[in-house]
């Protein structure tokens, strides 16, 4: 309307305008407008403020301690969470044992003098580039599994302990993994009744679950109700038999960057590359970062004093109280790391790898998901 009323409108004839309109329309149609295009992919666990201890509850459930259970049909006879009253719960130990026994919750607490409070990271074996977030860290309190097995008298011929959950989930541990002897830095499996210094929630296996530190989450059977000693040395368990996952549940060395995001558009200048690393076979030795195929440079691990300062509840845990036996970073517990980078304009690829104290590191690529995915972590970013 304003053009109609403007004195200069006669300068633009209808013919001229129509030609210009057609040209403009064609231009719009044919001119790539890629400069207007942005895209980002953000995992739910992101940023530079990842808490060392994962909250068990959070207004955003994606940021709380992850939960995995059945009832989706993936594994036959694997049901959803069980609601079990503490007084009706029992743990039966049978098979190749001298005295088959069933422990009540009260029976279990008779071992409480040897209860252990520790920090541990659980990583689901499904956790991967495409299904991240199935990894969390918290405090666990429980009784060494070894104690109840010794009380039942596991036969010397037994090779495996088959583990049964009330939800139908099954797994196994080698007798040596369950009863020792245990290597340096290794924390033995526990029958856990507290997470985060509070009773287990139903989702996490109330009243008692197993915890196998340093092994993938599927070894830590929830709502555990039966342990069967057997001479059969074959793999046994829902994930192994139904889904083909490895029977060796040790967590391979892995790292994830939570900042920056994949495919992020960044401004030139300082950028904090931040993330976590974990190995179930030894503590993390170092994390290294490479920008655009430059040589790998060491990132900084967040040290124990800083972790303790932010998480004082860690002070009276097994690992912190026994520093000579459990050097930091702890085996089976993630280590947070950071790496400053001055981003310059252009497209960049950030590569990150972790190395544990046993010398294990991440492969360039990892096509085999059955033993857990752990390729070198890559992030593509664009800096303007």
């Amino acid at each position: 309307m304003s053009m109609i009323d403007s004195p200069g409108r006669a300068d633009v004839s209808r013919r001229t305008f129509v030609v210009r309109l057609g040209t403009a329309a064609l231009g719009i149609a044919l001119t790539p407008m890629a400069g207007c295009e942005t895209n980002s992919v953000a995992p739910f666990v992101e940023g530079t403020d990842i808490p060392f201890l994962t909250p068990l509850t959070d207004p955003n459930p994606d940021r709380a301690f992850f939960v995995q259970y059945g009832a989706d049909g993936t594994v036959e006879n694997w049901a959803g969470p069980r609601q079990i009253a503490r007084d009706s719960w029992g743990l039966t130990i049978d098979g190749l044992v001298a005295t088959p026994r069933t422990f009540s919750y009260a029976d279990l607490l008779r071992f409480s003098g040897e209860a252990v409070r520790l920090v541990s990271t659980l990583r689901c074996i499904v956790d991967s580039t495409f299904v991240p977030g199935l990894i969390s860290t918290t405090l666990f309190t429980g009784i060494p599994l070894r104690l109840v097995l010794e009380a039942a008298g596991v036969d010397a011929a037994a090779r495996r302990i088959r583990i049964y959950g009330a939800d139908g989930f099954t797994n196994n541990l080698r007798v040596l993994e369950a009863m020792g002897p245990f290597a340096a830095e290794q924390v033995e499996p526990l029958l856990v009744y507290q997470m985060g210094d509070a009773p287990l929630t139903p989702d996490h296996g109330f009243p008692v679950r197993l915890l196998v530190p340093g092994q993938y989450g599927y070894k830590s059977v929830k709502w555990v109700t039966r342990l069967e000693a057997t001479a059969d040395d074959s793999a046994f368990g829902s994930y192994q038999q139904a889904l083909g996952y490895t029977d060796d549940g040790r967590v391979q060395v892995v790292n994830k960057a939570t900042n920056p995001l994949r495919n992020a558009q960044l401004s030139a200048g300082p950028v904090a590359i931040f993330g976590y690393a974990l190995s179930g076979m030894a503590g993390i030795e170092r994390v290294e970062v490479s920008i655009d195929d430059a040589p790998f440079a060491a990132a900084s691990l967040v040290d124990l004093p800083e972790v303790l300062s932010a998480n004082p509840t860690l002070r009276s845990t097994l690992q912190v109280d026994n520093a000579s036996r459990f050097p930091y970073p702890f085996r089976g517990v993630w280590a947070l790391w950071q790496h400053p980078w001055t981003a310059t304009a252009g497209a960049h690829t950030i590569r990150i790898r972790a190395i544990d104290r046993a010398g294990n590191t991440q492969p360039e690529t990892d096509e085999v998901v059955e033993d857990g995915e752990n390729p070198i972590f890559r992030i593509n970013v664009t800096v303007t």
Partner: protein
Amino acid sequence: MGQRRDSKKPGMIAHTIRNRKSHTGWGQPRWIGTFVALALIGALTPAPAWGQAWPASRGAFYAKVARSDIRASDQFTFDGRRSDFIDGVAGNAFVDQSYHLYTEWGLLDNLTVVLSAPFKQLAVHDLAFRYETAAIGSVSIGLRFGLFPLLGIRPSAIAMAMNLGATVPTGYTRNLTPSAGAGQVDAHALIGIGLSFWPTAAYVQAAGGYRYRSSYYGLSKAVACTAGVDLFCIRDTRPAFGDEWLFQAEAGLTLLSGTFFVQALGQGVWSVETPRIGFTALNPIPTHQRYFKAGAGLTVYPFKLTRAFRFENVGFGVQAFLTPYGRNTIDSQDFFFGIDFRGDFLR
């Protein structure tokens, strides 16, 4: 409506009256422009309402800018059942908060040029990630011919028009997760027929037509994408989208001398091929879909009340749609918040 008899008012009103002596010899009744403008208010809807019955008069200009808010937590399966949009994801796994520009201009009395362009802002999330893309989507360019003049039928309460157009990618990346559009050039043709109830300021119109999906991808691009490594993209498969039958119907009524305009709206898309290829969070554009949307709209022209005549043709509107029926498509709730304007331009 009576205000239009005041030829001393600026802008469109005066031009509308002058237009009665149009050089085409078909001197359109003044209410034609009213119905053109009112019907266009439905033009920015989930499936663009390409089928209109009234062509604009020469020089008449209409523009609308709208913000969409389209959300979906569910989808329709191949057989029409509702299920989670993404298994296990609670809440709105699909969100489209885009900006849309729609313009049209009467090049001749019976030939209208139509252009629309969206700035798409899409977000989808699965169990692990939130994927976001912002980009200019496919622009739509079209022409509308008034059929009655071409057939020698004098204007009456009934109008009929042929709508021809094409949607054209603007160079965006078609295999991003999610993509700003289908990535291919499509063409459509719809015949619209309308009936006015003048002097009551109300109308109904309906349109039907066909959309040809060309499978020509030359105006969009693809990024190299390695399955199992890259998360921000999907493999560039250049899917063969099924052609579609398009339907739409609407009824409108103005109240209080044009201060309020209310609409009832319906839209349908019917793939000629049976829905059989699903879609995902990463690629939420179904190749074969069928759906029906029903909605309503309200547009307010507040300056008509204030007698600020310079702005009396500026309206503020909201439209809302539900999806009562669908197959292989998202079950969304769609809202559009817009500002529209009509006037004259190079008459």
